[in-house]
């Protein structure tokens, strides 16, 4: 390793090189992480604005702000962009890229060229989607047949964009798995790995196993529209329910692709700001893998009223309840970590605590939907919409914001205004609950989802939800402005502002090009906070 000793006495932060080409051709995992961070954040904001437009339409019962078709296009775009272009690659690819090599003590991922190629594929997918926006699809992000096979909007480009994106997801997952296996620093044993790495590992496995199936499913939908293939068309002997089976075989694991990295983030933030070791390390680590495994066996719980057999419904309902167990274990472990800690309510910690609170609601309402009799009533109502957003925003997005605030100093070498960050958190937290909590009641009362107009009896709760969306939007706006202005005029960040023990905090902020001057020798796990007494690990 003689070549590593040259020129390392001079510290050059990885952000140093400027210019478009130095970014788009980079193979530095930290820069690729930023590329993903910027692209996915832009998509998040775009889809968020679409959501505000939808909520504005729903302020009153009548379809008056936009016509029903436009509304259908809006919710299709909102769902597709949020799911495929933001949440799936959001935490997994941006923070995964930035953190995995830093946390395991490596200079980069296993295949740096493949890594940037994955990003180009992501760009290609987004470009195809943007072309598809000329005549945007109105199928919903689930692309259910036969509607998606017959509507005269441009379903092909949109699904093809998602198909291309799938390759990016597969290759990134593959890269991370190999990196975790092969690139850990000496002494970084599996049971010393930070929990974010375990989470990313479980996520990567899901990406590898599930994405090809949605790839072929969307390809079949495309051939259905272009070549007249009839797998999903009852008139040709096909079966529209087959599409749902195929689709959810991917998309249910995909839900966990979205949430597991956020769980990893929470497991990192809480010990640092409690000065306590994470409670039940192995239970959290293995429950990630457990969730990943079970997630492949529950897809049909999206189809309890689609006409599947009673036996199938029984089995899938049972398996769905099983997923709740590892999830509950994690929540209990995080809460127990706070016990006798020295808790600092940093903005990142507030997002982590908000995550536990909201994710608990999201998880518990999932129990309603897993219980067959209750699901028959609640399926395809606003209850599902609320549940899903409590998991996706209350869970994943809270985790994403928490990660942004937590690793911001390391990533950019600057500090943001902590007071403003807390104010933004408050608005996000309150706004989110005002937006989505009423939707549980709407669902119980029978308000179906994907309605451009709705009966007057739902008006008061629907408009409350719309007001909430304005508070939420305002909170996010304040947060974005605060983080951006920190980049421009924030004070310089120290190496390790929170006294974390994790490897990424032991190097300068922002990290140098090759991360570590010397590959570190790891002697203990990441969570050795607190005073060791007679208790041993």
């Amino acid at each position: 390793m003689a070549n590593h000793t040259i020129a390392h006495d001079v510290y050059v932060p990885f952000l140093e090189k400027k210019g478009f080409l130095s970014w788009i051709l980079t193979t530095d995992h930290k820069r690729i992480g930023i590329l993903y961070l910027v692209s996915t954040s832009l998509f998040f904001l775009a889809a968020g604005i679409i959501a505000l437009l939808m909520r504005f339409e729903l302020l009153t019962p009548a379809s008056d702000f936009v016509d029903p078709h436009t509304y259908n296009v809006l919710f299709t775009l909102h769902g597709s962009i949020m799911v495929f272009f933001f949440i799936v690659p959001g935490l997994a690819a941006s923070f995964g890229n930035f953190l995995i090599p830093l946390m395991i003590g490596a200079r980069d991922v296993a295949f740096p060229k493949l890594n940037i190629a994955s990003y180009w594929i992501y760009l290609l997918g987004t470009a195809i989607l943007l072309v598809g926006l000329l005549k945007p699809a109105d199928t919903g992000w689930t692309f259910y047949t036969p509607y998606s096979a017959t509507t005269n909007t441009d379903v092909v480009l949109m699904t093809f964009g998602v198909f291309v994106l799938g390759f990016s997801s597969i290759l990134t997952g593959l890269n991370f798995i190999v990196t975790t296996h092969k690139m850990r620093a000496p002494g970084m044993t599996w049971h010393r790995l930070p929990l974010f790495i375990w989470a990313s590992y479980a996520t990567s496995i899901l990406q590898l196993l599930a994405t090809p199936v949605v790839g072929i499913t969307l390809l079949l939908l495309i051939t259905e529209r272009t070549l007249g293939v009839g797998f999903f068309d009852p008139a040709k002997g096909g079966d529209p329910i087959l599409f749902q089976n195929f689709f959810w075989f991917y998309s249910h694991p995909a839900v966990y692709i979205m949430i597991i990295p956020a769980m990893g983030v929470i497991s990192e933030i809480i010990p640092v700001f409690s000065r306590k070791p994470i409670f039940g390390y192995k239970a959290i680590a293995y429950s990630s893998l457990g969730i990943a495994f079970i997630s492949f066996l529950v897809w049909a719980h999206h189809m309890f009223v689609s006409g599947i057999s009673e036996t199938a419904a029984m089995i899938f309902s049972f398996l769905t309840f099983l997923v709740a167990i590892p999830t509950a274990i994690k929540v209990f472990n995080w809460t127990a970590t706070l016990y006798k800690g020295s808790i600092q309510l940093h903005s990142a910690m507030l997002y982590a605590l908000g995550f536990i609170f909201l994710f608990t609601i999201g998880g518990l309402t999932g129990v309603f939907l897993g219980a067959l009799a209750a699901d028959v009533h609640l399926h395809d109502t606003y209850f599902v919409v609320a549940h899903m957003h409590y998991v996706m925003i209350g869970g994943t997005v809270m985790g994403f914001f928490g990660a942004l605030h937590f690793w911001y100093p390391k990533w950019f070498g600057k500090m943001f205004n902590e007071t403003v960050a807390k104010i933004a958190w408050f608005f996000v937290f309150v706004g989110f609950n005002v937006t989505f909590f009423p939707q549980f009641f709407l669902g119980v009362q029978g308000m179906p989802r994907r309605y451009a107009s709705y009966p007057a009896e739902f008006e008061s709760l629907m408009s409350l939800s719309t007001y909430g969306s304005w508070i939420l939007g305002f909170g996010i706006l304040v947060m974005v402005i605060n983080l951006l202005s920190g980049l421009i005029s924030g004070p310089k960040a120290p190496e390790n502002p929170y006294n974390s023990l994790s490897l990424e905090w032991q190097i300068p902020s922002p990290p140098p090009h090759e991360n570590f001057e010397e590959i570190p020798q790891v002697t203990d796990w990441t969570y050795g906070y607190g005073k060791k007494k007679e208790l041993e690990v």
Partner: protein
Amino acid sequence: MTWIPEVASNLAGKVDGVLLTITLLSLFFFVLITVILVVFAIKYKRKRDDEETPYITGSEPLEIIWTVIPSILLIALFVYGFVVYKEMRNPPADAVDITVTGKQWLWTFDYYNGKKTLNQLYVEQNRPVRLVMMSDDVLHSFFVPGFRTKQDVLPGRYVQLWFTPTKIGTFDIFCAEYCGTGHSVMLGKVNVLSPEAYDIWESGLPGEGGQSVASLPPAELGEKIYKEKGCNACHSVDGSTLVGPSFKGVYDHKVELADGSQVDADENYLRESILEPQAKTVKGFQPVMPSFKGILSDDEVTAVIAYIKTLK
């Protein structure tokens, strides 16, 4: 404000039982976690930067307890949910069959005695009903919140749904599975009639509702039909374009057809378009409208035309 729609079928109370049980258990765990979270966050809030914290990495007994107890509760909930579900899926042998067809964007109901209604389902109180359902086009889902039951409706395959209505009154039917532009106006009503009222309805003229409508002036009757029979799913009355052309100002104006020819939108053209919609489609619109032959009586067609005439 009510938290949940009125209990209007034999199944509703049972589903509510499941909902209530889960709600109470969820509330318990939610309050438990929230209280612990808040208490810890306040009690252990950092006061000095050099506070000492204990090195606790886990507790096996505790972890076993909080794995086992939720597991037992979850399995109990699963069984409860399944038992009720099983009942919801298995109609009794004496149920009355009604054939339901979902199409973009209306429901039609065919009764055993040859009657046919549109968007209005008529059932008798306390008599089990089995709906045999199929879709003409894409997926739909038949959902009656008051009955707490729902079933996706598929093309090319019959599915069934049953309930015994217990309350006299009118209840919403929603299409719960997204089915395109008119999804949110694919609404209907279940009319639960007392046995006496049902007898009267049953022996009435085919295609007519239970209540007498003869007393309304034609244009008003037409407006009522426009709203109840699903015309509003595709045709606006304010000039905006939905799936079909707007009714506003169409009467007595020239209409350009799909083949490029022109036709006068007089009474006969409007009548033909209602009964044989595919005969002369307007340019720029898909030939997707279902025929209303056998659904609307001659008087009703005349009433709809009278209503269209008022929309200038």
